[in-house]
């Protein structure tokens, strides 16, 4: 059988192609499933371990003193919200703003410097950011606070959001900007109302990734927000956070606290998923048929 191994025989080619095609598809599907496995495993384990301790008391009460059973993490849930609100107020405008600068004005040395700085900042261990904020904010204010925790997390959000915003804006075709300039729309207006709007889906994804990443951070909060066994709604007071509470309870010697730590971790994940999903739903509502 001459030429049987040659790829020029049509049937041979199609067989080989079918095999590689199906092989590649199987690989891609397998990879996707492998990605899902750890996520689902973690979530399932959290549910199994934690769901038994999630009850009304857990969601509405503050922690009981060591040794007593019962109580909850209501103050930590609220505290996490408070700290994340501060971090978003800092991280979103600074991150999106510097991303806009990098994409629309930053084709120069200064832009390169900011890009490099952002990438380095992204790699700085979170506990280092915690120490820095401790010495810059906490030491000066002379007490731990929700504000300083928010500052630490906000700083961590900036580089992720900045680079995501830059990448998404660079993906907006230049002809779209030209269309706006051609209508006599000033550059700043074009950037905010045309380019950023066109890139909004990607920018929002970047913001959500940054948000979800810092929402579970513990290390930078250890010596900034510090934690609190009681209710606190003031920005300048030590504040409980779910991640801190989980950490404290998990390393404690009490069995009841261990259970509550699992429950706290479960609630933390659910809150993050809920927040991300809510933003997705709200932002996709404004999108049009056939729009990008």
């Amino acid at each position, binding site marked *: 059988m001459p030429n049987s191994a040659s790829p020029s025989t049509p049937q041979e080619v199609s067989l080989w192609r079918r095999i590689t095609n199906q092989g590649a598809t199987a690989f891609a599907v397998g990879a996707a499933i492998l990605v899902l496995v750890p996520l689902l495993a973690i979530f399932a384990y959290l549910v199994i371990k934690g769901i038994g301790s999630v009850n009304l008391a857990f969601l509405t009460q503050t922690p009981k003193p060591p040794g007593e059973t019962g109580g909850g993490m209501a103050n930590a849930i609220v505290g996490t919200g408070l700290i994340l609100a501060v971090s978003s107020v800092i991280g979103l405008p600074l991150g999106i703003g510097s991303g806009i600068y990098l994409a629309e004005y930053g*084709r120069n040395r200064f832009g390169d410097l900011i890009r490099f700085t952002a990438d380095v900042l992204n790699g700085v261990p979170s506990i280092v950011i915690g120490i820095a904020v401790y010495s810059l904010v906490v030491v000066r204010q002379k007490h731990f606070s929700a504000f300083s925790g928010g500052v630490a997390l906000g700083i961590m959000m900036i580089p992720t959001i900045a680079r995501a915003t830059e990448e998404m804006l660079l993906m907006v*075709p230049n*002809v*779209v900007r*030209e*269309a*706006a*300039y*051609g*209508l*006599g*729309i*000033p550059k700043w*207006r*074009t950037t905010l*109302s*045309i380019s950023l*709007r*066109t890139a*909004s889906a990607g920018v929002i994804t970047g913001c959500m990734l940054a948000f979800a990443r810092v929402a579970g951070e513990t290390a930078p909060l250890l010596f900034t927000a510090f934690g609190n066994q009681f209710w606190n709604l003031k920005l300048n007071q030590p504040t409980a956070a779910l991640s801190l509470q989980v950490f404290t309870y998990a390393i404690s010697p009490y069995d009841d606290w261990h259970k509550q730590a699992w429950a706290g971790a479960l609630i933390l994940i659910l809150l993050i998923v809920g927040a991300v999903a809510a933003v997705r739903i709200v932002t996709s509502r404004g*999108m*049009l*048929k*056939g*729009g*990008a």
Partner: protein
Amino acid sequence: MGVGIEVRGLNAWYGKNLSLKSIDMSMAANHVTAVIGPSGCGKSTFVRCLNRMHETIPEARAEGSVKVGEMDVYGAGSDPVEVRRRIGMVFQKPNPFPTMSIYGNVAAGLKLNGFHNRKQMDELVERSLKLAALWEEVKDNLHKKSGASLSGGQQQRLCIARALAVEPEVLLMDEPASALDPISTSKIEELIFQLKQHYTVVIVTHNMQQAARVAEFTGFFLMGSLIEYDKTEKIFTTPADKRTEDYITGRFG
């Protein structure tokens, strides 16, 4: 009503590269003027200089005198943003704003220039879409459908409507039909014929038949210079310059 355009001694550079060499050209009000020439001859650069779009490219600059009606485009104190508002532009590739509805696209130039009267805006959007011969096709989906969901030819007419909505005096078209099929192209050409009642139109085209069909005057560009500029009929039947004749008879370009 359209206004005339007077270009005197216009030079344009990309970096150190001189790509338009002292162009003198006058375009009559309410007429269509075509600009033809081989690729890279500077015809796009030329129309982009008329509304100061040229200088939005990094390191690009232009010098000389361009008068559009009473407006001195390159005069001291002339604001490029204002210039572009009064001189509309349609680009080679349809470029609707992808996240905006059909209505939003047409209204964008008004809204983002601080115009907020809803009733007047509705009227302007309808008028512009009618002028661009798109109204009948989209009137039921103005707010529901995105501009990007239309066909290529419809998108280009949407872009024309968008340019008309800000009520310019001149309309520049940079190869507006080169990305379109023949049916869409003929629609755009009919439209250009209608538009000259209200506007002065300058159209860059690769397609010489198109120039012959739509334009009263035609300018032939070669290597950054205006070689010949005359009535379209004259250019295509008895050109004065040998190079023009070579080009229109297909000997190069």
